[in-house]
């Protein structure tokens, strides 16, 4: 495996889509494992998963009291860097959303 690079060590501060996905899943805004399946699907299915991702970001922005844009903007990154409680903000149902 490639040696760890300094940037890798700073991933906690560099927020990319994967980090956002983990954050959204950890704190209950996105069902875990949902996006992997989305990547496998093509066409409008993948599009609807993009929608889920965007909806999840909007929900996070609304809950955190920052402008709701659906984008991973500066305010959202700032919110994700803040210290917080480890409990999810929303208790997802195990039997939750059926995969489309």
């Amino acid at each position, binding site marked *: 495996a490639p040696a760890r690079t300094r940037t890798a060590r700073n991933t906690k501060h560099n927020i990319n889509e994967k980090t956002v996905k983990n954050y959204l899943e950890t704190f209950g805004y996105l069902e875990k*494992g949902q996006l992997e399946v989305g990547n496998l699907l093509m066409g409008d299915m993948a599009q609807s998963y993009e929608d889920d991702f965007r909806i999840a970001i909007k929900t996070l922005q609304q*809950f955190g009291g920052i402008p709701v844009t659906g984008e991973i903007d500066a305010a959202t990154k700032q919110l994700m860097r*803040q*210290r917080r*409680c480890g*409990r999810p*903000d929303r*208790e997802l149902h*195990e039997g939750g959303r059926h995969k489309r």
Partner: protein
Amino acid sequence: FAKQGEMWKHTNLTWSMSSRLIPSQLNLHETRHVLARALDVWEQASRLTFTEVNSDEADIVVSFARRNHGDAYPFDGRGSILAHAFFPGSGRGGDAHFDDDELWLLQPKNDDEEGTSLFAVAAHEFGHSLGLSHSSVKGALMFPWYQGIQPNFVLPEDDRHGIQDMYGPKVKKKWADNPNYRPIQTPPTTTTTTTTTTTTRRPYIHYHDRHHTNHRHDYNPRNPEKPNYYPTPPTYYPIPPHHPRPTPETTTRSVTNRPARYPNVGHEYPSHPRPNYPNHNVPKAKPSPTVRPTPSSDIPDTCNTSYDAVALIRGELFIFKNRYHWRIGSQGRYPQYPIEISRMWSGLPKDLTHVDAVYERPDKKIAFFVGRKLYLFDSQYLVRGYPKPLTHLGLPESLEKIDAAMVWGHNDKTYFYSGTMYWKFDEEEGRVELDYPRDMSMWKGVGYNIDSVFQWRDGKTYFFKGKGFWKFNDLHMRVEHERQLPSATFWMKC
């Protein structure tokens, strides 16, 4: 505010610091003081009271841990995730965990100072311990992101509404509100209690005394060899000379167990002849746990037992307890049951004492979990290569046993439950899914450490714990009724 759903059934809660997981950087005494203040925030706003105890069995146990510490919420070093807590319930319910890698401050800090106020975070986490979820109201204590703490902190309105909605406001005594009120110093009232005790549990040194006064008996404690024809007057002395010096162990035992060992005490007294004294104080040897009870002794009482495992196999209900199982078909319970499990599944270990969980896989094979091993049967025959360790399924090395297993009809996925956590198992891959374990609180109402779970013919899910069971509502993800129904009447038709 948002209520999670679980709440404590009693209001006089106990809390303690974990005896094992203590903060590595903080003074323990000061830490306890800060935690007590954080609990007081909720006590002042509701009927709840909090008493610190020195036990890991308290309702709320506070721990300081690092990274992965055995629950579904690993910590991440300094920053980001600070702490988490569990909603009310038995076992780990109500407990609060703090990330020991954080720079915790016990005193209010200046804004330019780095660090995290333990008081602020603890007050928030204890909100979860009492049943509150996160609130989206900025400034609320239950807002999920850390906001520091203002001097002279007062519980915000949103949180006060939440806790009073669950436990009711604090009941204030009018006279206590009057700052000028000084209770009159009344002399302490002495109460004399007159008790007429005819119990047999008297300190045993009186035992001889009573014998002497009540019966003309020939035993002479001073000189056991020479019988005494005349009762000697009652004498008090701490230990009869013929007894070995009491050790804490024997003293305790002799007080608590004495009636059984001195047949002439209590209801059998005085009519029985006395045994000869010298050896009646010799404790009977207890059977060591490794000695197997006689077979008949562990046959479970069909109408008065909990269950180790319950499974629907080929459409028939199998209930397992100890080394035995019952079989219930469409015509009801098979006669002659319970019979030994190994009579039907002979591939199980010879010294089997019980099974932990059983389920029928989608491929119709039958999985038995016994301790750290999985035994897979094709009908009654052990599949080659089994038993296999739980780690073979992707379960952690530290897992000692599975409490329950089932294929959940709601999504046709297999689930394993153990302690406070559960896993989703991918039958095709033969391993549990990566983003598990998760916390049992997802299955609202069943608590932790369940005995068994299974999906019945009616397509409903049933959780078992102790001698009762819950019917589970799969859509609402919670039990249909808080109170358990007795298992024996429903499943065994007792």
